[in-house]
């Protein structure tokens, strides 16, 4: 999967036609195979752009910052990224007419060791859903698969799970990198950071981490698109995908096979309801 040339051509065409102010893409770090997101504002820098299976980071995240706000933006999206973009469009965070989206029919990206990422192996929608232009050959429709880690953990006993997650919360240093790297966390001030003392858990304690991670994952339940930006950002390498994948599974199984951001205008699972939702757990 290498669309470097096509993307460079598209970007330079867009700049030449004056259609965009900023193009968000990837460039090489210059010293290893990894890539750095880059915001290009001038046609002469277009040659920096690359795209291959190391283009991991979800660029939709950059639509949150002042560098792209109120500007016409060109953007490269993979399948999972486009789902988050779709949600942002539905939630009125970005304007479609200010975006020029280059969609990729993604064949999966790799982690730093060069192994295919887990989420790519389980990916249901590898093709960009929102796009002005598509690169690559579209894939056939895949079936939703339950995450292997989830299966393994869910089969363990309550006490074991508690021990496992206690370790997770203890290792969290509450840098909030997960939140900042998430394309869907766009609130100006996160509810976890509201300094109203009775609700606030500002300290980096285990309990604060429990509170923060649980609240965060529940706010993303039914919205998380499994791009794994958070996991990549976490300096403690916490298995954050477990929380999201578990929620995704519960929602998929119980709420009419809902998957986040796969249809245009489709909101998160908590923004709608159905008469058929399970009721048996309520007395």
């Amino acid at each position: 999967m290498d669309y470097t040339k096509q993307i460079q051509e598209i970007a330079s065409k867009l700049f030449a036609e004056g259609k965009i102010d900023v193009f968000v893409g990837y460039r090489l770090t210059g010293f290893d195979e990894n890539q750095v997101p880059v915001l290009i504002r001038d046609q002469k820098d277009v040659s920096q752009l690359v795209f291959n299976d190391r283009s991991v980071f979800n660029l939709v995240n950059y639509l949150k910052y002042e560098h792209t706000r109120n500007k016409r933006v060109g953007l490269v999206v993979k399948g999972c990224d486009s789902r988050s973009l779709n949600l942002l469009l539905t939630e009125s965070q970005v304007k479609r007419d200010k975006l020029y989206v280059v969609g990729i029919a993604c064949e999966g990206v790799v982690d730093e060791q060069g192994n295919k990422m887990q989420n790519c192996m389980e990916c249901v929608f590898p093709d960009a859903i929102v796009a002005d232009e598509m690169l690559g050959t579209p894939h056939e429709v895949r079936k939703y698969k339950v995450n292997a880690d989830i299966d393994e953990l869910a089969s363990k006993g309550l006490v074991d799970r508690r021990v496992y997650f206690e370790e997770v919360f203890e290792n969290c240093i509450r840098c909030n990198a997960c939140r900042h790297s998430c394309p869907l966390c766009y609130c100006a001030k996160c509810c976890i950071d509201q300094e109203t003392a009775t609700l606030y858990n500002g300290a980096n304690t285990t309990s604060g981490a429990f509170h923060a991670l649980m609240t965060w994952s529940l706010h993303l339940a039914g919205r998380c698109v499994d791009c794994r930006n958070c996991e990549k950002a976490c300096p403690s390498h916490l298995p954050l995908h477990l929380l999201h994948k578990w929620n995704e599974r519960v929602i998929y199984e119980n709420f009419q096979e809902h998957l986040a951001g796969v249809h245009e205008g489709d909101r998160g699972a908590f923004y709608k309801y159905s008469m058929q939702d399970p009721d048996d757990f309520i007395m």
Partner: protein
Amino acid sequence: MNVEIFVTDKAGLQKFYEAIIARNETWAPVEKFGKFDFKRVSSLGECDPDSPIATTRSAKPLFFPRSAKIMKYTADSTGTRVKETDEDPFTAKRVILGMKHCDARSLQVLDKVYNWDYIDNDYQKRRQNTVVISTRCDKAETHCFCTSLDYDVENLDAMDVLIVNGTEGKVHITARTEKGDAFLKENLDPASCILHPVSDEELKKQYQAFAASFRLKMNYKEINEKLSKIFDSPEFEDVSANCISCNTCAFVCPTCHCFKISDERVKDTGVRYKSYDSCNNGYFTLMAGGHNPRPVKYRRWRQRALHKFVYYKERFGENLCVGCGKCAVSCPVNISIFEVVNQVASNEVV
């Protein structure tokens, strides 16, 4: 100080480690979720003191805990009482194994800020009660640039005991401070070592090979000088464009020392904590009433870069960066502070 170099082999080193762990409260790099971090260990099997991979987070949490209790208090109808917190677990006597050079150096840098004006007694106590055992790296990692900064890596005296791998499986153990000397006398079995009181030729050679393996090299004096002049450079806005303000760099940095104070209260009792904070945070400087001196990302980013390479230098005479590259390793978007600082400095405004 009269430097004695003990020479032993890999097995002797393992024995040395075992003896330390058996006799002292020991902290060493332990693998968890696929990376290393300093943890309390009770046997050598749990940890890997010689791991070539540096810990993701620095040893900073052992001296400046991620969240320390300042006090507990009760406030009810009978009045307000402030209570002592529990015994600080970090002030006990302890040994840290497998610390890298850069980490050890960061403690010297932090000493400056903690000992000016108001002296941080807890930090002092933690420092005094800790024996730092450092292993010199054999090879530089991708993001390392410790040799490019204002300290002599070869003759660094930040650690108490230095371990260097020599040729033919030999291991050299030296004390670098009085504390380290006393510690070696107590814990090292001289029978397992040959004593070399004179030459340290081999150490020099190892260091030269290590220094030659660096990919990143810069002239810190030039950087200091250039950065101090370009506060208003528009370049900052460009280079910070792909930063996502995630704070990871500050939390893993061995020298970042900003903190916040927060209260938590349930009914009548409460605890006040001091915990890490980062200047990349949008509301780090937000004042009540809405005024924010650093309201946009590039200004916060600039504060962090200049604090590392200009402000701290002006104030305390040292760079607040030890060149460990931990921030670049952990950065989710692979921004390297080395590259960015050099890029800014190279675009000097007239």
